């Protein structure tokens, strides 16, 4: 039957995919009718509030909650002893608890929780709770934690240190490669922590009902992991927990861990017997963090005289904050995501992620791939200068070819990296600008590489598909789509609907993507690691093709034609030999339903086993990879150091873009977020204390700071991606930062190794160069 891939179909044959498809939920969002978790209310709903630790590191001697328990209007009070089961997004590093047990580990750690009739009562109750704690030495510098310390933050720290994860990898012979290298460059990168700063604060609503079930609505981008974690910590089987993901106001990785407040909120609902809503304020969102790790890396790269790569030698020290979170993955990624877009013949990486008494770091858009990419791409710029080779040429000489394997056995199925380089070089007018713009103006190239979906599901047992999609078509002619994929604004609902509509040949408005609800949505691992388009997209196509096969069979019966010759038209099925005769979609559907009632179909995606057999070999394996080449142009006020990007040319290989509107939006948004990290965003710690837990002091770029953006989508179809597509959600971020750095260098002749690059830093750099009498472009 014709459930074969549509891969062979000519692009022109696609009605929806490849075009610009407005978001299916757009009309709800623009009218204020889209429902986010905080927009929901349940009868008798209480307000949940958290008491947080004022200490960065302390041993809890006792917590006295008696007064709070006795207060009128207070329905539940919780401390860590009630639900002490440790959890964590990675099963191998469960070191978090819903509320602090024995110790608190950062300012903001959760000590106690209250459910009360209103916010004021809850806050008054929290104020009565007495915590007796013994302050412990605080560790805020990860380098200190590399050695044994008096009071390790966690018992599981390596040999009495605060090291959470150590990675040592060596492929080839790096020392030999460097020994014979005529040209080596070295970059010490230093990166402040940054955070997601999604506009919708974290919020959860939970209700335990007398039928023994718990329902949890939460602003999450990974409903399935939340589902598992609730079950583990609360001791309730998963089938008695229902997780619903309402509309989510942005995630960027910050809503991908199961978060303690989600568990606490559910626990309060269980304890109180009443629905409880817990909305974190913006300061609490900053403390919850899980943003990009403060990182220092040391990247050495060796080239031969022709600019061919000989090897990488990389070290990274990563500030993990109080918990593991995704940290084991982060530690690998900070090395192995340097494996593309260039062929690296020798590679060594030593990475340490160290616990500190700060809010936990975790996964943030382009997780693990951003800071290492910065140092590599700045190093390439320096190498190009040393070698006297154009930065484009240096990169082109080292590009990984399609259908190749890296030295650590990543399989590169498709890459259009060379085409990215060509396209962006031409569009940006590079040849007439590089080193030729007047002093203070500059142009720079930065490239990118990212996974299109982590090949390893975090929960790899039991072995099941990473994505499943169910379809139901009933007599009304509507098609309902169920999947636990999590649309957090990136447009995955729209893509899901469009794929189904494309395959079935129907109008988009026939397809309804049901909100994520674990009672009806089959498991998909959610929105992280840029996996959704690739994995959910393949599952959706498979589900739709299975349904199409049955409709085609019914149509064939009605037309008296052989099923294998039936073609799908717009809302109809026809036999090409007699195209005047056709049956409508609805006729075919109703015919098909005679046998079995409402049609249902299912599709799934399971990635193939891949990667080597060495320790950590799975980290960074993905069914496909995205590639990028960006050119940034900047203008610097050389007297103040104030600068702005004027233009970013973004050539990106996401395979075939399925929804250009969404892909452009992802690229533009990624550039904005990358510019934020480059230009001013910083988790500004003084010791363990976060000085700027507020949107006023956390410098997200404003519209005036945005450059003109030219998006160039030049990817070839990926052989395994749905309709040839790969990711476009995270990879578009990473090239932004080094492109900016290299453009600044072109403008003023100063290298910047420490992020963010605020105006005072640029000014100081220019002063320093002048003081050293180093001239640049005649100045």
């Amino acid at each position, binding site marked *: 039957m014709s459930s074969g891939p549509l891969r062979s179909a000519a692009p022109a044959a696609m009605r929806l995919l490849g075009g610009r498809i407005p978001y299916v939920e757009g009309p709800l969002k623009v009218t204020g009718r889209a429902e986010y978790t905080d927009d929901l209310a349940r009868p008798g709903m209480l307000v949940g509030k958290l008491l*947080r630790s*004022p*200490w960065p590191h302390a041993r809890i001697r006792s917590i006295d909650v008696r007064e709070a328990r006795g207060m009128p209007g207070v329905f539940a009070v919780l401390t860590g002893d009630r639900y002490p089961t440790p959890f964590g997004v990675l099963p191998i590093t469960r070191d978090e608890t819903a509320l602090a047990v024995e110790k608190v580990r950062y*300012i903001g750690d959760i000590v106690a929780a209250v459910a009360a009739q209103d*916010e*004021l009562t809850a*806050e008054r109750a929290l104020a009565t709770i007495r915590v007796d704690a013994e302050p412990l030495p605080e560790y805020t510098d990860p380098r200190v934690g590399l050695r044994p310390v008096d009071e390790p933050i966690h018992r599981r720290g390596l040999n009495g240190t605060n090291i959470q994860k150590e990675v040592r990898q060596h492929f080839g012979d790096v020392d030999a490669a460097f020994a014979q290298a005529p040209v080596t460059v070295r970059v010490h990168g230093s990166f402040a922590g940054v955070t997601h700063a999604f506009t919708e604060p974290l919020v959860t609503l939970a209700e335990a009902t007398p039928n023994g079930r718990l329902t949890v609505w939460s602003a999450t981008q990974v409903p399935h992991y939340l589902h598992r974690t609730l079950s583990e910590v609360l001791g309730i089987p998963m089938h008695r927990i229902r997780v619903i993901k309402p509309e989510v106001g942005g995630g960027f990785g910050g809503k991908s861990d199961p978060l303690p407040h989600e568990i606490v909120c559910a626990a309060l609902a269980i304890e109180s017997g009443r629905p409880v809503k817990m909305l974190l*304020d913006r*300061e609490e969102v900053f403390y919850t963090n899980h943003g990009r790790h403060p990182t220092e890396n040391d990247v050495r790269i060796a080239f031969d005289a022709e600019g061919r790569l000989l090897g990488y030698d990389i070290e990274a020290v990563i500030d993990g904050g109080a918990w593991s979170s995704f940290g084991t993955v982060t530690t690998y990624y900070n090395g192995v995501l340097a494996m593309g877009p260039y062929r690296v013949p020798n590679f060594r990486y030593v990475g340490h992620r160290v616990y500190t008494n700060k809010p936990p770091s975790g996964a943030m858009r382009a997780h693990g791939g951003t800071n290492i990419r910065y140092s590599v791409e700045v190093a390439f710029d320096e190498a190009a200068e040393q070698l006297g080779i154009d930065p484009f040429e240096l990169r082109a000489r080292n590009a990984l070819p399609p259908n190749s394997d890296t030295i650590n056995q990543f399989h590169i199925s498709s890459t259009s990296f060379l085409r990215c380089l060509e396209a962006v070089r031409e569009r940006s007018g590079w040849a007439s600008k590089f080193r030729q713009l007047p002093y203070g103006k500059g142009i720079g190239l930065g490239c990118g590489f990212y996974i299109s979906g982590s090949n390893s599901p975090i929960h790899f047992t039991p072995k099941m598909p990473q994505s499943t999609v169910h379809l139901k078509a009933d007599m009304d002619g509507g098609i309902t789509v169920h999947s636990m994929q999590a649309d957090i604004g990136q447009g995955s609902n729209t893509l899901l609907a469009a794929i189904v509509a494309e395959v079935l040949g129907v109008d988009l408005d026939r397809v309804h993507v049901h909100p994520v609800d674990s009672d009806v949505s089959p498991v998909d691992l959610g929105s992280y690691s840029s996996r959704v388009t690739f994995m959910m997209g393949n599952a959706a196509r498979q589900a739709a093709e299975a349904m199409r096969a049955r409709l085609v069979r019914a149509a064939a019966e009605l037309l008296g034609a052989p099923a294998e010759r039936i073609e799908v038209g717009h809302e109809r099925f026809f036999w090409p030999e007699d195209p005047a005769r056709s049956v409508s979609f609805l006729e075919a559907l109703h015919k098909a339903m005679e046998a079995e009632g409402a049609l249902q179909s299912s599709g799934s995606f399971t990635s193939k086993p891949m990667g080597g057999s060495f320790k950590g070999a799975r980290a960074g394996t993905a069914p496909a990879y995205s590639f990028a080449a960006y050119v940034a142009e900047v203008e610097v006020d050389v*007297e*103040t150091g104030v600068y702005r990007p004027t233009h970013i040319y973004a050539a990106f290989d996401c395979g075939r873009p399925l929804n250009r509107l969404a892909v452009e939006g992802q690229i533009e948004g990624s550039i904005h977020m990358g510019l934020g990290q480059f230009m*001013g965003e910083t988790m*500004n710690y003084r010791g363990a*204390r976060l*000085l*700027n*837990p*507020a949107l*006023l*002091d956390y*410098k997200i*770029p*404003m519209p*005036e*700071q945005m450059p003109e953006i030219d998006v160039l989508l030049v990817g070839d179809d990926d052989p395994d991606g749905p309709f040839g597509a790969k990711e476009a959600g995270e990879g578009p971020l990473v090239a932004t930062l080094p492109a900016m750095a290299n453009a600044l260098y072109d403008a003023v002749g100063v290298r910047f190794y420490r992020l963010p690059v*605020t*105006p*005072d830093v640029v*000014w*100081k750099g220019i002063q320093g160069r002048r003081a050293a009498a180093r001239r640049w472009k005649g100045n």
Partner: protein
Amino acid sequence: MHLDPFELHRPATVEETVALARELAGRFDYLAGGTDLLANYKMHLNAKPHLIALDRLAPLRERRLDRIGAMVRLAELERDGAIRSAYPALAEAVDQVATPLVRASATVGGNLLVDTRCFFFNQSYFWRASLGFCLKADGDRCHVVPQKERCYATFSGDLAPALLVLDAEVEIVGPDGRRRIPLASLYDEGGDGIRRHRLAPGEFLAAVTLPEAARRRSSTYAKLRVRPSFDFPELGVAVACRWAGDRLEHLAVATGGLETYPRRWDDVTAPFVGRRASSELFREVGAAIRPRVRPVHNTFLPPDYRKQMTELFVRRALERLAPTSGAAG
């Protein structure tokens, strides 16, 4: 986040307002646009049990070329062509305050009296409690310059430097009647981040008045900040001058965003009056002011840089206003 309960009074006349102020002495704040005050109240920063809203006092909303009511919203000023062209420095300062959404509510008086700011003050109760509070709210020591006497919170209004160089005066109303003082006298250079102005208890700003002479000066305001909107000034420089040909007849320079009050630098600038326009002159004025400003490390950008930029911003402002640029008055 919530506000602790307070009583809200909305007097309709100045007399009523003064009577209320007398009655509630020490237990109230005046409420103008609320964009700063209510945000601070939400963080439980020195909240009072009573608010006296000034929004019903019609005279405070009047807007004339020589007299701008204290309750005139910044958004109104932003759109007032006559005022804009009469006082470029004021227009430029207004344009750069916070965001359009803030300017819709924020007022002239509110910006002149906007509370001083500091990383250790503009924080939630929880945050401040975890540090043991500070001099300016609930505590007894300063975390910027460790000691227990003086608060180093930074004056963060944009309008004050602009109005200072325009020789503005402020009309003040209070239990003891009405008085008018130079704007410069409103700020207490003997005070600190807490004792930041010289209003007597119960007094409020009624209006800003501008002399006719101010309209014959060229003026400008420049602001240093990380982002072109939202951010409070890390430095604000206003300059007004009048040229006779290329000879400097009048010069006023004021700064904000650096210390606990905005300052006008007449003693520094006086010797330069009478000089001819030249790049040396502009450089010298900036260089003379720089060593006098004393920013501390309680805002986003480092104090040393803000100091350096003060010199540059003064120089650039003078360059902009130089007679050859056609801005001579």
